[in-house]
């Protein structure tokens, strides 16, 4: 207790100083001069309360943590079904989730479906970045650049050449992949921090280019009026454009704007399912294992005849192509894009999704993407504190589960008993 007294006093003093400066006094403009105004009595009593709490907590920290250790921990392992049962249930569970994903939008509000669509875009982005950061271990801070390439590919092609969403989707993926390859080449020799800085720069280059190439991209004004995707040529607008038909006319039902929202959601679900399937397969393919081997030890890879150049480039290229698909869909959903949507903070959020989810773990990344998009929506009243909460969650996660929500599990491979 005696030993804790001084640190406790110190912590209380620091708390007092900080709260005094931040909350206790205020500058007020009084004509041309600034005057220092003290806070009211209630605020001061709150400050005093905070100081006392900090002091007591520091003073009794050791007994408290000892008490916490003595608390019984619930044993949850027994509650989960056994391995065999789980393996048998797995396909059914997956089927149930997929069916649920398709039925769910017809039962909830339009806003919820719209939010789910946004979430699915982040799921796709998270899974794509997971290839580069989680599997191959290449820290990419400019991932949003490929997202922007995908979005602008669709926006520009549809504006200048009138190409449809479904035509542009593969083109956007291919173009983003090309950009991924172009970025990959100069950074082949870089690792860790250096790689992060170069990719960060690349992300900014793309954004600034889009901002300043006014004649092509419209600069900061962005591009508006981008066509929505159609269902085999059926549009989801109130009135059909020339030479085509609308969805509600074709089926003889009343026009409802929620049809469009649900259709966009279903397209997103399909894209995400495809992404999950493809990445899941690739992870178990030779190339997927080579990515992970490269993350573990590049020199050992070389000594075993794996070409690091090809492997790194393939990770960048594939990761970028998924961002391209996501970007193309994003442009179609928003109907309007501008460089504002592709700032560094987007890259940071996608990276946070990957890190929070657990590097390399697909399920974890999906969970984290859902949490990262839905939590801010639920906490709309605290809009101003969003970044603060974001930081707080990050710090807590790093303390509580530094390996992420659902760390990657190694696949169990059955060998023939020989």
């Amino acid at each position, binding site marked *: 207790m005696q030993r804790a007294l001084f640190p406790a006093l110190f912590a209380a003093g620091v708390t007092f100083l900080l709260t005094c400066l931040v909350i206790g006094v205020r500058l007020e403009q009084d004509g041309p001069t600034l005057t220092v105004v003290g806070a009211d009595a209630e605020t001061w009593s709150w400050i005093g309360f905070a100081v006392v709490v900090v002091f007591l907590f520091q003073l009794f920290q050791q007994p408290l943590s000892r008490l916490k250790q003595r608390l019984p921990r619930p044993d949850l392992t027994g509650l989960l079904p056994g391995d065999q049962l789980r393996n048998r249930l797995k396909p059914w569970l997956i089927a149930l989730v997929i069916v649920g994903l398709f039925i769910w939008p017809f039962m909830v509000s339009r806003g919820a479906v719209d939010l789910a669509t946004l979430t699915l875009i982040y799921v796709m982005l998270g899974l794509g970045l997971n290839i580069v950061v989680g599997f191959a271990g290449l820290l990419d801070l400019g991932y949003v650049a490929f997202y922007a390439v995908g979005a602008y590919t669709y926006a520009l092609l549809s504006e200048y050449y009138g190409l449809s969403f479904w035509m542009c989707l593969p083109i956007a993926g291919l173009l983003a992949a090309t950009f991924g390859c172009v970025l990959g080449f100069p950074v082949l020799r870089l690792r860790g921090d250096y790689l992060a800085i170069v990719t960060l720069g690349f992300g900014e280059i793309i954004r600034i280019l889009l901002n300043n190439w006014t004649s092509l991209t419209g600069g900061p004004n962005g591009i508006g009026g981008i066509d929505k995707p159609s269902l085999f040529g059926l549009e989801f607008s109130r009135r059909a454009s020339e030479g085509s038909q609308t969805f509600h006319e074709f089926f003889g039902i009343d026009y409802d704007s929620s049809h469009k929202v649900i259709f966009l959601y279903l397209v997103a679900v399909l894209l995400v399912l495809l992404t999950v399937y493809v990445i899941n397969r690739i992870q178990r393919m030779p190339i997927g294992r080579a990515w992970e081997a490269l993350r573990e030890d590049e020199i050992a890879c*070389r000594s075993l005849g794996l070409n690091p150049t090809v492997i790194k480039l393939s990770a960048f290229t594939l990761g970028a192509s998924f961002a391209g698909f996501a970007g193309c869909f994003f442009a179609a959903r928003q109907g309007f894009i501008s460089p504002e949507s592709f700032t560094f903070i987007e890259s940071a959020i996608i990276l946070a999704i990957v890190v929070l989810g657990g590097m390399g773990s697909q399920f974890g990344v999906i969970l984290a993407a859902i949490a990262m998009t839905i939590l801010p929506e639920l906490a709309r009243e605290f809009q101003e504190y969003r970044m603060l909460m974001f930081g707080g969650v990050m710090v807590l996660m790093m303390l509580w589960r530094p390996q992420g929500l659902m760390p990657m599990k190694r696949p169990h491979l059955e060998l023939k008993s020989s």
Partner: protein
Amino acid sequence: MSENLLDVSGLMMRFGGLLAVDGVSLQVKPRQIHSVIGPNGAGKTTVFNCISGFYKPTGGDVRYRGKAIQGLSGHRISLLGLVRTFQHVRLFASMTLIENLLVAQHRHLNTNYFAGLVKTPSYRRRQREAMDRAAHWLQQVDLLEHANREAGNLSYGQQRRLEIARCMVTEPGLLMLDEPAAGLNPRETSELDQLIVRLRDEQDISVLLIEHDMGLVMGISDHITVINQGAPLADGTPDQIRENPAVIKAYLGES
């Protein structure tokens, strides 16, 4: 052209002002265990790095099965069948043992994306063959029971054996081991000793070995090259080396 599997002549490696390897020559014949010994800092590992393509030699010739390989990149050389281990274990620590062995078989597998996505019959067959080969080698090095553990969790001796198995699944012609017995206890060393001899006798390969453990070197080598301060000092059978006065002076100590 020659009967030698590996033919190194006049190998030179210069780092700035330091001549680390100066005119080293060695010939590895098929189905032989060839050791390279020398005091610490003699340049043994540098010779290894030059042969396996991790350094570009400043001068000299390296021929593998008659083909000049000096200056090729490391992964190209290993694809030719010249595979090495490292002084410090370099496993893919967070991957399982099987995965380690599957990565090593990259070139035997069908790496076509489309084939892997839809699991074509040829993809499945190659995958199965790779798994069988992995199982075979895990058994050879006595690690089959740990197949699904992460490589980083193995004991040091087991990691050393896994590293050799990982080289062997690539089906090399020449296996280069850089101090494989470093950090092993006497029992593990003698197991390793038997394993290396078995590789030569059963797998029809040659082994190029760097080792400090004199018992191991003298016991199993067919041929020994001694390097001192980057320059070749002696070359011959274990018996000849043991008798060589220059070697005794430089390495084994004067008596």
